[in-house]
């Protein structure tokens, strides 16, 4: 087919190309820092074969990206490859050791983008905003296959067609920021495939995308891999994705390889403890949490603590107005957890923020039932009442970094609400803070520390401590766990549910992660383009969704089970 013809060049593909493409042996990459060195990659060995997909999984800081970048010798300064060999076996039978090349030299540059291509996590920032898509793509072609302008353009159009970019003729002269995230990732892929590389390295290519888009991209990569018969090295932290696409899996932790083997072996008979823990915590999120099993169901007649009626919220005005929340109605009963699920842009976060009047809704009502049984409409509440209510309705933020003021100690952060509401001060305040920290499973003696001294999970606990400081009745948790590694998620959720029982909390739990919802929530509302398309009990929505969109959403979620690969059977939802 034409791709190959175009790609043909002197000494190109011999009749039977070698199946082995890249062998990495004992790769060691160090990051020298002031007080020593960080061993980002510590003796990693792996092999990549034609037409096969190797998934590298690991939690943040496991060194999986650095491994990938080491192969192309594009590790950010001051990192450098200390030892190890990276044998690249060429189609013509020759092989070279990439590790020997000078990182700025001509040889390695000839490999980059030509024989080994790479795509990155952030499709938005990984492309230059001021150059057209075509410009950036043709560059590769002209560089490696020294094509003429016309030829290169033709090839780009073809590639963009392959990655299913609509209206290619115009798209090629567009700028990247005019595309959606998914489309940008497609562009990246097209660019990577431009010279028919024998190896594609994909560094978390779908992490920034919605599940449905992710599924599309995964499909695309799979299909192109078959077409081009290239090897794929896929780096991710999402076990679901791994189970979905991997042939072989390599589990990394702290720069070392924990375990490697076929995907089936890893999932169904993991040898290494870390692997087991990892798999375990993933599978855990596949069903309802034990804690909830023990709970007695909430009686139907109990009056809702929060009742949202026909809430609408729009940004901007006039023709470019955006209806972020469109006529939404919800109820939250005491002690229950309402999940709001949806993809990015579905308005779920806005929805949550409206509940606390961070945004002022443009229409509708939020009836809040005070402890004394009286109800009031938060939308109309004046400053004082609002302040009072905000003591009882609290929030947990998505970003454990941005939501904690780096310039205040933990004690100050957690104590702030108590202080400004004149609930506690001085010694008393100190004790209360200590107690709160204990409740969220943090060492009380750490309260003089600053946020930067804590890990992501610990920070999120601090956030929770701040939320419960005022004994609230409702907590709005916005993507509370999505920034955390999978192994931490269930812990975090358990903690929250524990507190729920202890303090009789109600949660409004906003997430894009069905797994988390299923695990945590009693009832679920599915949002799509600002509207609630379906509400119901978690079980019902997760297992037998009625609305077409929900079905599509669910079908696009990769299952962490290589034996039940499903997303290729997914059905797409096109808004009526």
């Amino acid at each position, binding site marked *: 087919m034409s791709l190959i013809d175009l790609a043909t060049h002197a000494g190109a593909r011999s009749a039977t190309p070698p199946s082995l493409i890249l062998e990495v042996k004992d790769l060691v990459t160090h990051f020298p820092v002031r007080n020593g060195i960080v061993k980002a990659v510590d003796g990693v060995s792996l092999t990549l074969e034609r037409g096969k997909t190797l998934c590298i999984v690991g939690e943040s800081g496991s060194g999986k990206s650095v491994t990938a970048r080491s192969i192309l010798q594009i590790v950010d300064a001051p990192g450098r490859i200390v030892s190890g060999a990276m044998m690249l076996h060429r189609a013509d039978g020759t092989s070279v050791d990439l590790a020997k090349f000078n990182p700025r030299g001509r040889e390695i540059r000839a490999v980059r983008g030509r024989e080994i291509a790479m795509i990155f996590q952030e499709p938005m*920032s990984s492309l230059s905003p001021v150059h057209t898509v075509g410009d950036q793509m043709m560059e590769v072609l002209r*560089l490696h296959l020294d094509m003429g302008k016309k030829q290169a353009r033709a090839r780009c159009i073809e590639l963009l067609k392959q990655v299913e970019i609509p209206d290619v003729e115009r798209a090629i002269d567009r700028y990247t920021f005019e595309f959606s995230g998914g489309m940008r990732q497609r562009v990246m892929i097209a660019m990577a495939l431009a010279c028919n590389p024998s190896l594609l390295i994909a560094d978390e290519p779908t992490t920034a995308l919605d599940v449905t888009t992710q599924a599309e991209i995964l499909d695309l990569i799979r299909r192109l891999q078959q077409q081009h018969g290239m090897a794929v090295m896929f780096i991710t932290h999402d076990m679901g994705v791994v189970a979905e696409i991997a042939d072989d899996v390599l589990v990394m932790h702290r720069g070392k390889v924990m375990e490697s083997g076929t995907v089936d072996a890893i999932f169904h008979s993991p040898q290494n403890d870390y692997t087991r823990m990892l798999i375990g915590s993933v599978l855990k999120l596949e069903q309802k949490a034990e804690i909830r099993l023990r709970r007695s169901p909430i009686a139907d007649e109990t009056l809702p603590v929060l009742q949202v009626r026909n809430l609408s919220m729009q940004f901007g005005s006039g023709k470019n107005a955006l209806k972020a929340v469109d006529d939404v109605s919800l109820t939250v009963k005491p002690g229950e957890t309402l999940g709001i699920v949806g993809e990015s842009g579905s308005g779920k976060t806005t929805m949550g923020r409206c509940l606390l009047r961070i945004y002022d809704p443009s229409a509708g009502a939020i009836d809040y039932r005070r402890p004394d049984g009286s109800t009031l409409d938060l939308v109309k509440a004046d400053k004082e009442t609002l302040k009072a209510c905000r003591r009882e309705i609290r929030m947990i933020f998505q970003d454990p970094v941005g939501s904690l003021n780096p310039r205040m100690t933990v004690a100050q952060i957690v104590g702030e609400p108590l202080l400004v509401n004149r609930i506690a001060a001085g010694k008393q305040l100190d004790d209360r803070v200590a107690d709160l920290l204990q409740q969220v499973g943090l060492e009380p003696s750490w309260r003089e520390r600053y946020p930067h001294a804590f890990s992501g999970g610990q920070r999120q606990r601090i956030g929770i401590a701040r939320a419960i400081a005022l004994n609230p009745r409702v907590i709005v948790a916005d993507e509370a766990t999505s920034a955390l590694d999978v192994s931490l998620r269930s812990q975090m959720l358990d903690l929250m549910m524990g507190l729920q029982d202890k303090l009789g909390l109600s949660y409004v739990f906003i997430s894009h992660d069905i797994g988390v919802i299923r695990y945590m929530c009693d009832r679920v509302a599915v949002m799509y383009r600002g509207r609630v398309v379906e509400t119901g009990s978690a079980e019902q929505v997760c297992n037998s969704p009625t609305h077409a969109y929900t079905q599509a959403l669910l079908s696009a979620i990769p299952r962490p089970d290589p034996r039940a690969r499903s997303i290729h059977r997914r059905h797409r939802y096109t808004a009526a």
Partner: protein
Amino acid sequence: MLRFIAKRLLWMVPSLIVVSFLAFVLIQLPPGDYVTTFIATLAASNEVVDQTTAADLRARFGLDQPMIIQYLKWISGILLHGDFGLSFEWQQPVSNLIWERMALTLVLTFSTLLATWGIALPVGVYSAVKKYSVGDYVVTFLSFLGLAIPSFLLALVLMYIAAVEFGQEVGGLFSEAYVNAPWSFGKVLDLLHHLWIPVIILAASGTASLIRVMRANMLDELNKPYVTTARAKGLSEFHLLVKYPLRLALNPFISTISWLLPNLVSGSIIVAIVLSLPTAGPLLLQSLMSQDMYLAGAFVLLICALTLIGSLISDILLALVDPRIRLE
């Protein structure tokens, strides 16, 4: 886009009027008026003005009228028939006076600009790419030195050295033979031969600060993911540097245009005085000092207009080179 430009242009009108009034008041603020200053100047070389003529002059220039009247007379002259009035000192129409100086001012400013960018760009990029290297430290130090030396000091010393040690003719932009000669190759050479001192002095501080700007911009851009992408494509470091980070780091540079225009007039005042360059700056200073109302007023007005236009132009340019601004 057009609406934006139109809006900006509209905004200029009121601010210019305010400025013009402000300017007028400011120039009037100092005690005395043009005539007293005139007398005083002559007195400097113990020359005496006939006592009767002083009053005479005042009456003739309408300095005996209240300020607001003078202002209205002036501004209406400008608005109604673009007449900026007569310079008290030279008895010449202000506009002629200013334009007489403009040509050379332009030459000087633009050659300075070229020098500035010519040096600042590469050096800035270098010290960004080689961050915390010896070279970077040297560059940093030099650029700070450039920022630190008062331009007039530099001017005076350079001038002395050039004149006394090397016998180079300083002051002015042409040598005797060429001052009023028609433009010719010889004249251009002569100009270049005189240009270098002022250019060096004027460029010194500007270059220094631009190097800093450039360095900062580059550092911001250098560790953006798209650089890695480009590297992963197999581009050579240089090619990649020029095409991506440099390209983006340039955008802030474009905003320098907004100060470039007004600098045509006011920027080089002090240096121009020391080197007695026939540019607009000294004339402006003179007019301010001698309270030559209309001349000074026109100058200030001109400068403000240039500033506003300059910032407008730079915004438009920015929109042109940066699609993000253009398309969103």
